[in-house]
C-alpha cells in the first residue's frame, strides 16, 4: 500500500512541529526561569514535600488551582488570592499543580491567607465544621478522635461543640498542613 506513506510522513511531521513548539522550545527557555526563581525562594523541606505528595494523592488539584490570574482575567486579586503568578514561582514544582478548576478557591497563597495549622486540621477533618456551605470532601480517615477533658497528646486539637473530643492528626495530615501553610507566593521580582 504505497499511498499510506504520505499519511505516515504527514502525520509524523505535524506531530514533530507541535512537539517542537510545545515541548522543546518551552523546555529550552526553562533554565532562565529557574535561575530567576532560585534567588527568590527556597526548595520544599522534606516534610513539605511529603505533604505535597498527600495533596497529589487525594486529588486536591481537581478543585483547587495554584495560579493567580491578571486582574483583566478575573477577580482573583479581589478574593485575596495574591499577586498574579510568575513562571519563577514554580521552579520546584514537579509535578506541577497549576490546576484547571476552581470548584474550591485558589491555593497559591493559602499559607498567607490562613496560617493557622489548627484551622487547617479541623477543616480537613470536616470542612463543614468551619465553612457550612463547603462541598469539599472531609478526610476523617487522616485523624484519630480521642475523648478527654484535657488534650490527650501534644498537637491534639479540640473539636468545637463536640463535648470534649480531640483530634489527633496522622503523619499524613500533619505533613499536608505543613505543605499548605508553606504556600506563600508573594516574593517580589528579583
Amino acid at each position, binding site marked *: *500500500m504505497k*499511498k*499510506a506513506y*504520505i*499519511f*505516515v510522513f*504527514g*502525520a509524523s511531521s*505535524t*506531530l514533530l*512541529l*507541535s*512537539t517542537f*513548539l*510545545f*515541548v522543546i522550545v*518551552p*523546555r529550552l*527557555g*526553562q533554565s532562565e*526561569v529557574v535561575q530567576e526563581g532560585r534567588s527568590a525562594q527556597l526548595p520544599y523541606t522534606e516534610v513539605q514535600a511529603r505533604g505535597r*505528595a498527600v495533596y*497529589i*494523592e*487525594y*486529588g486536591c*488539584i*481537581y478543585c483547587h*488551582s495554584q*495560579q493567580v*490570574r*491578571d486582574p483583566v*482575567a*478575573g*477577580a482573583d486579586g*479581589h*478574593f485575596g488570592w495574591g499577586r498574579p*503568578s510568575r*513562571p519563577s*514561582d*514554580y521552579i*520546584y*514544582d*514537579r*509535578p*506541577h*499543580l*497549576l490546576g*484547571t*478548576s*476552581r*470548584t474550591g*478557591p485558589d491555593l497559591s497563597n493559602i499559607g498567607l491567607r490562613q496560617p493557622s495549622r489548627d484551622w487547617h486540621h479541623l477543616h480537613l477533618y470536616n470542612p463543614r465544621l468551619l465553612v457550612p*456551605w463547603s*462541598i469539599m*470532601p*472531609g*478526610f*476523617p*480517615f487522616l485523624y484519630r478522635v480521642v475523648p478527654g477533658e484535657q488534650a490527650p497528646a501534644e498537637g491534639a486539637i479540640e473539636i468545637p461543640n463536640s463535648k470534649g473530643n480531640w483530634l489527633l492528626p496522622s503523619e499524613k495530615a500533619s505533613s499536608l498542613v505543613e505543605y499548605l501553610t508553606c504556600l506563600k507566593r508573594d516574593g517580589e521580582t528579583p
Partner: protein
Amino acid sequence: MDTQLAFVILTFGASVLAMVSFVVALIQRQVLVPPQAAQAIFSTGEMGCTELESRPNNRWKSLDQSARGPILYFLLSSVGWLLLGSTLGLIVSIKFHHPEFLGTRDFLTFGKLRTLHLNIIAYGWLSFAGLGLSLWLVPRIMRVPLHKPKILYLAGSMWNFGVCLGCLGILSGYTDGLEWLEFWWPIDGLLAVAGALVAIPLFQTIWRSQEKHFYVTMWYTLAAFIWFPVLFVIANMHFLHTGVQQGIVNWWFAHNVLGLWVTPLGLGIVYYLLPKITGYPIFSYQLSLFGFWGLALFYSQVGAHHLLGSPIPTWVANLSIVMSVGMAIPVITVAINHHVSAYRHLGVLRQSVVLRFIVFGAMMYTVSSLQGSLHSLRTFNYISHFTHWTVSHAHLGLYGFTSMVFFGGIYFALPRLLDRDWEYPGLINLHFWLAATGILTYAVSLGIGGILQGMALRDSSGTFEQSLKVTLPYLVGRSLGGSLMLLSHLVFAFNICDLLGRTAREKRS
C-alpha cells in the same frame, strides 16, 4: 512582544503553507486515482442499498471472521470498563452536591474516584472501543484478513492489566499527579508496549494489502496509531519538565488525547458507517482531505488554551488560540461532508438506529468543536476557565461525539462478528434515547452552571461563596443526566449479554 507576534504569524503561515502543499500533493495523486475511492467501501451490489443492524447477507463475512476473537475481546473489554467508569462518574457527580455520599473512607474520596473515572473512560472504554472497531474496519477496508491476530490477545490482556494496575495505584497513592497522566509511570511503559503490539498487526495488514484505494477512514486510523504512542511516551518523561513548562506539556498531551487519538478514531468510523448504512458514498471525497490535514495541523497545537491566564509564555498561549480558531476549518469541512450526506438520506434515520447514533455523534462533533474554538478566545475563556463549563464541553466531545459513535459502531459490528442478529432492536432504540437525553441534560445543565460560576468568579463585588452556591442546582442536573447515561449503558450491556448468551447456547446444542 514584536518578536513573539512575528513568531506566531510565521508559525501560522508555515502551517497553512504546509497544509496547502499537502492538499495539492494529495489532489495530484487523486487525479491519477479518481475519486471513485469513495466507493471503495462497497462491494458489488451494495451501492444504493440501505444496510441496517441486521445482516441478511453479509458479503464481508470472511473478513469479519478473520480476527473475530481478538476484536470481540477488545469490544467486550471496552463495555466492561464503560460500566465501571460510568458508575464511578455518577458517584463522583453525586459527591459534588452531597459530599458525604458513600461515607468518607480513604479509597472512596472524591479526588481518587474522579481520577479513576477519567482514566477508566479514557484508557479503558474509549481506547478499547476505538481499537476494537479499528481492528474490525482495517481488514474490511484493506480487503485482506488481519495479519497475525493472535498477538492481539496478548496486547489486549496487557492493556487490561495495565489499566487495572493503574487504577489500583491511584487508589493506593501511586500517581504521577498530572491530569490525564495519573497512571504511575512504570505502568505507562506497560501500556506503551501493549499499544505497540496492537499497532504491529494493524500496520502489517495495511502494508500487505493490494487494495487500490486508501479510504479516508484509514487516513485517520493510521495517523492516530502514529500520533498516540509518540505523544504518550514523550508526555510521560516527567523527569524532563518542571513547573509551568510541565503544565504546557501536560495540556499539550491531554488535549491531544482527544484531538489526535479518540477524535480520529471516531471520525474514521463516521466516514465508514455513514455511507455504508445509507448506501451512498460520502458527499465530497475531496473535502475530506481538508478535514484530515486541517485536523493534523491545527489540533496538535491547541493544548495551551487550557492554561490561558497562567504564567505561560505569551507566544505559546497565542499560538494555541490561533490554532484553536483554525480548527474551525477542518470542523466545518467535516461538518459539511457528514451533515450533507446525512441530510440526503434522512429517511434512513427512521429505519436505522445505528445511523441515529452516528448522525447524533457527528452533530455533537460539530457543536463541541465550535465550542472549543469559541472558548479558547480570551474574552470567553476568562469566563469559562476554571469552571464546570470545561467539564460540560469535555463530555459533549467524548460522550456526545465519540462514545455515541462507538455505540453505533459496536451495534453494527457485533451481529456481523457473531453472525447473529439483535433479539431486541427496541432496546437499541431505548439506549439511544436514554443516552442522547442524558448527555444533552448533562451538557446543557453543566454548561449553564459553568457560565454562571465563571461570571461570579469575575465579579469583584461578590464573594467566592457565590460562585459555588450558584452552581448547586446545575450540579444536581448533571447527576440527573449522568443517571440516564448510566441507565442506557445497562441496557447496552444487557443487549450484548443476550447476544453472546444466544451465540454460546447455539454453539453447545
